[in-house]
């Protein structure tokens, strides 16, 4: 049997707030197979953000297990977690989090700077390659402020791809974008998922976005309320084509 992208078993996360204990996650179990496109949904306070932090190896569970690509993160220290993030996770944030006054190419190169096995020329090649994957190779020398929101998010996706991660972890990645641009991003995500077999975990609170994924996990009050396979995900490309064409914007 093939290795799972991630395995979560009876995961709990509690925070101490003064004398009170807040139980943000109350026992969550699920697996993600390689090549799946999972959306995690939930309203605010559902434990979505806590789960995201744990999935992203930024935080550790209080109780329970989390295996990312077969690695038990409970056994890792701060530095080893950083290393793991560098090698196995590609983050895409709501606010893009690109470095200002830094070219698209250099932004994409950033994760590779923290990987000492990668040479200067390889770094450049891989970053260019990742920019090609998001169709921004001719904008490689643009600064973030010279790019539109959608383009900035595509640079961020390229940055998430560049280290060839086990999983792309997107946090409300379309939250700052209008619907057309959101569809573009989702179309890109779907393409990466279907043609390149990238595992994508997409945290969102918009049901609209969840419809593009092959599986939706619904969180509520720190437990999984629903875990549904979506046999017929909507195609973002078709949605995009169906939108009226505007003059002021072209892909």
């Amino acid at each position, binding site marked *: 049997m093939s290795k799972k992208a991630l395995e979560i078993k009876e995961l709990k996360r509690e925070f101490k707030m003064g004398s009170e204990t807040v139980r943000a996650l109350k026992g969550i179990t699920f697996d993600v197979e390689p090549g799946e496109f999972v959306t995690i949904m939930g309203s605010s306070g559902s434990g979505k953000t806590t789960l995201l*932090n744990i999935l*992203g190896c*930024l*935080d550790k569970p209080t109780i329970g297990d989390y295996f990312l690509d077969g690695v038990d993160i409970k056994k890792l220290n*701060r*530095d080893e977690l*950083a*290393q793991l*993030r*560098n*090698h196995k996770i590609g*983050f895409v*944030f709501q606010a893009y*989090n690109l*470095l*200002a*006054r*830094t070219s698209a190419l*250099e932004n994409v190169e*950033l*994760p590779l*700077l*923290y*990987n*000492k096995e990668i040479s*200067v020329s390889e770094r450049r090649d891989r970053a260019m390659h990742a920019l090609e994957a998001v169709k921004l190779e001719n904008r490689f020398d643009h600064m973030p402020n010279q790019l539109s929101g959608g383009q900035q998010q595509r640079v961020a996706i390229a*940055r998430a791809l560049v*280290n060839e991660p086990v999983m792309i972890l997107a946090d409300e990645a379309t939250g700052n974008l209008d619907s057309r641009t959101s569809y573009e991003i989702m179309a890109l995500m779907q393409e990466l998922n279907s043609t390149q077999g990238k595992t994508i975990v997409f945290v969102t609170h918009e049901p609209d976005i969840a419809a593009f994924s092959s599986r939706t996990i619904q969180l509520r009050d720190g437990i999984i309320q629903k875990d549904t396979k979506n046999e017929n995900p909507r195609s973002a490309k078709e949605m995009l084509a169906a939108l009226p064409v505007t003059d002021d914007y072209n892909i």
Partner: protein
Amino acid sequence: MNFSNLFRIAYRALLRNKLRAFLTMLGIIIGVASVIAMVAIGQGSKQSIHDQLSSMGTNMLTVQPASNLNGGVRIAGTSFQTLTSKDIDALKNHPQYITELSPSVSSKGQAINGALNWPTTMTGVSPEYLDIRKLSVKDGIPFTQNDVLTSAKVCLIGQTVIDNIFPNGENPIGKIIRFGHIPFQIIGVLSPKGFNTFGQDQDDILIAPYTTVQKRILATIYYSNIYASAASEDVTDQAVQEMTDKLRASHRLRDSEDNDFTVRTQQELIATLSSTSGLLTVLLTVVAGISLVIGGIGIMNIMYVSVTERTKEIGLRMSIGARGKDILLQFLMEAILISITGGVIGVLLGFLSTQIVTLTLGWPTIISQSSVVLSFVVCAVTGIFFGYYPAQKASRLDPIEALRYE
């Protein structure tokens, strides 16, 4: 993470904020430039003070006959006669640290010009004496070795004597005066030296060849003193040793016997000199220290602001795989780059401002290598020292909170 990546990260981060990086550097730039300029000015004035003090003859040595026991009676050194031409010959034999030598004999008496007379001292010396005592001849010429050989009746005259026996401003050169019964022709006038620290008038003097004074006035073969100059002020002690050894040999003293002479140096002048320059050095070091500390605090301040302002960037870097150590080294590297670049610019500016000071104000300046090296090293250390704290703060941020920071 390897060094070139680290350097690249820090370098790019600094380029992103060129103006701020420059403003941060400014403290260091001004600090280093002022240190270099100040030390250069300090060294320059130290050198000129040194030159002035040397003009008093800091490397001068004097040999006097010492008091000695003679059949149980202590005899005063000055009346004890031990120094002769044999000693001069011994001292002149392959000198190592001694450059110039002059015997000296002196006689008190009246200088007489017609109806005017003045009590003064005639000192008999060799031509080297003028060099040793840093005396110079203002008008006329000094006497020569030939005058010494012929015991010529020529003399150099001090300003005080001129004032008293040539009160009407006549030119004394070529005039014949009498000292005691002996007529002397004045061939030169000494530049005035004023009073020395003991209140002695150094211009109340006549200088003649020592042979003349010995044979024509005192009828003696002994010298009252021997003057010598050491090769430099720094080898004074060696010169003293050399003279002592040679004179002991010349006087055939046994090991058990005490010296029958004393070699004196200008310790007091040397002490003055070193205390003056010591004080300058301390002052400049303090100023240098203060300005670099201020520069360093500037760096720390900006690095703190920078860490706070770039919290989100730090969070991002951590989320994509930067370890705490990587963040620490990045910020430390930025601080060091700032301080070293500031140091380089500061050194250049220091050179430039030193040149400007010399050209416009005409102050003597000497740029010392050690001040350049020192301020540069202090810069780098300052960068590390003051950069470490903010960098450590950055490295300890929690990536989750840092990412959410607005």
